[in-house]
């Protein structure tokens, strides 16, 4: 017969075991989230990889290999789409600099700052298709913008903003900047609202001017948000511009506004080539992963700078 004391001894957990059990708790806690991520992210990515290296062969069989990549990589339309995505990347520094400057001005409570803040943020809440349709009318050869220019006796500046193959992508670019600017401004304003104002007072006492305060207090303080905004915007320019292009130009004229997303959509849904679309999607994904890796490195550096 076993005494109660012996029984308690028998079931007592060894101190080392307890530590191990405690060590498992975090994993158990994140398990549901990991499961959800696995279902909504890992599985689709795994399927995408599988689709990208397989294609229907003859007699209903399936071929495996890199033939889909070999088919899309030499396509001039693919080159054109990549080039246009890179052109849209140029919107990111413009967006960032203008948004930081505007946020700083609004933070200084210039007269009517609340009104300006609303006006700047308003485009961001509009649906992209609505913005696209409205601008496709405004930017017509005989549209509102050119009419205004003509009335101001600036006819020399009128252009076929969406019909000129050399201009169309830049017109789309400008609309994206116009709409996305509000998000950056609000993001930077939110960060600035937590800044210690005594830093500016101290800088003023030391004789620092507006520009020096901006450069040495505001910008370093905004650095983590700038890094986040830049990365997010780059990924947006890579994989979130379909709506603008689809509505405003459809990829034309002369294929001058094709972006990778539009190409993927056409291969998948118009040409009935889901495997080629998967190969293109893999390339976009790889690009996004590179961007995220760069962001990660930058974040570590900023964290080290912040001590």
């Amino acid at each position, binding site marked *: 017969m076993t005494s109660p004391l012996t029984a308690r001894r028998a079931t007592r957990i060894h101190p080392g075991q307890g530590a191990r059990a405690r060590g498992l708790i975090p994993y158990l806690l994140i398990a549901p989230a990991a499961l959800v991520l696995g279902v909504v992210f890992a599985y689709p990515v795994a399927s995408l990889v599988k689709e990208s290296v397989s294609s229907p062969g003859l007699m209903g069989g399936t071929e495996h290999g890199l033939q889909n990549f070999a088919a899309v990589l030499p396509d001039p339309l693919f080159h054109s789409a990549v080039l246009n995505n890179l052109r849209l990347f140029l919107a990111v520094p413009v967006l960032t600099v203008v948004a930081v400057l505007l946020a700083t001005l609004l933070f200084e409570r210039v007269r009517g700052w609340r009104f300006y803040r609303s006006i700047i943020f308003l485009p961001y809440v509009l649906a992209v298709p609505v913005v696209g349709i409205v601008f496709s009318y405004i930017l017509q*050869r005989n*549209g509102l913008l050119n009419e205004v220019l003509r009335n101001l006796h600036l006819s020399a500046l009128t252009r076929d903003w*969406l019909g000129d193959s050399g201009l169309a992508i830049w017109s789309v670019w400008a609309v994206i900047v116009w709409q996305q600017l509000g998000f950056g401004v609000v993001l930077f304003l939110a960060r600035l609202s937590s800044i210690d104002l005594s830093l500016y007072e101290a800088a003023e006492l030391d004789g620092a001017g507006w520009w020096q305060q901006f450069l040495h207090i505001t910008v370093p303080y905004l650095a983590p948000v700038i890094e986040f905004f830049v990365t997010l915007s780059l990924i947006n320019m890579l994989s979130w511009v379909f709506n603008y292009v689809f509505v405003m130009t459809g990829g034309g004229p002369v294929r001058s506004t094709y972006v990778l997303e539009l190409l993927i959509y056409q291969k998948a*849904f*118009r*040409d*009935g080539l889901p495997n080629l679309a998967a190969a293109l999607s893999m390339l976009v994904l790889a690009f996004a992963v590179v961007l995220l890796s760069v962001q990660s490195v930058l974040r570590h550096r900023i964290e080290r700078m912040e001590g």
Partner: protein
Amino acid sequence: MTDSERPMSGYSGPTMSRRQFLGASAALLGVAAAPGLLAACGGGGSTNAASDAGGELLVWYWGEQEAPGMKDFFEGAVDKYNQAGRDKAGDVRAVLQESDTLYTAFRTAAKAKKGPDVQYLWGGTQALEDVWMGNIAPLNDLLPQTWLDKVDKDARRETFWNGEQWGLPFYELNTAWAYNKKMFERANLDPENPPQQWDDFIAALTALKKSGVVPLGVGFKDAWLGGWLISYFGAQNFDSVDDALAPFRGDVEFSGEKYVGWLEPVKELIDRGFFNDDVLSLDLYQGEQLFEIQKAAITNSAQPQIVGFQRKLGTDTVGVMLSPAWGQGKLARFFPGASQVLTVTSFSPRKDRAAQFLQYLHEPAVMKAMYDASGAISPDTRFDLAWLNTDVDKQMAKLKPTLPSIWYQYYYPFPFERDGVTPGLQQLFQPQGSVKTAVDMMQQAIATWQREQPAQVDAYKKWTLLG
């Protein structure tokens, strides 16, 4: 008792001799085979349909956008069909599709093998692409040949492939040019005799431009005009419809006067400033509106829309003309006949019922109802031309039997248009545009198509036209 009549040992239920068993089996087989035999003897679609899956027969259709009134017609026709109990196995439900999702929604459904039993598709290769993907069932197994023969042969040719009929021509979408007779008069042109030859066409456009109007009002921002322009001008050096297929089969190069000669006349129209100045800013329908608001003298348009223009602006203002001839081939003067089709999906468990519904849509009373509601004409010999009630329709019906019929767009693969024809023509509208660049783009598009779509290249090799 002989062996054959001996009860089976160990069986305690009602006994049956071998002779009785064989007799009963024969009777059962006879009952099971009866519908098939009846059908083979011409028992009709409803008997066939009895072997199909029951439940709702789903039809995804389109057409309201180009033949206004189609939705009312379709819903009314389906209601009558259901109320009359024409399909004993279940009702028909028709769902109007959006232009942008007509193909994407169907292909998604086809991939899941769950969706419509009857699918509307644009004609020619735009329907055959889905045939090549395995999404469509051949109609020859579902409709009697004698019945199919009553459908217009030119229209059937557009979706006849590999010896089988895949699409049932539903309504004609003949395309032509609408012109403003009053603007012609003001430019001292004969409003009742529009130009038929290229030189006369150029002279007329010059006179119209001189009179202060935009001669040609079109829109090319949404890319669709590319298919129209190549179809208006691109086949004029062909001697037969088969010439359209040859470059895609790999028989000939897409080059030389026969295939790319048409780009020079188009460039001439652009260089002479006959088009509106905002061609690349406007969508196809916005370009047509320039004609409707009487800012342009001529526009490209489909027959039902020209009828609409005529109703709005009057028969004394709107006339219809075919593309003027610049080419030297037997198809230099041609009838731009095209038709949209209804198909039976390969994954439908109700194929016979679907075919029965398609036959219903070609009954004379139903065809007349469709024409009255939407102006859409069934390409069917049972369609009585006496029903036509507009000048445009009568004029087109008169021209149709006198000319060879082709709508070029229906015979080339769509990626060729999207990646070659459209950008090639759009760059012609740019200040630095050149015919050579357009040709390069079209040849490049064919090369890309051949690389990416080997199955379609094989399909073209199997494509023999309906004779």
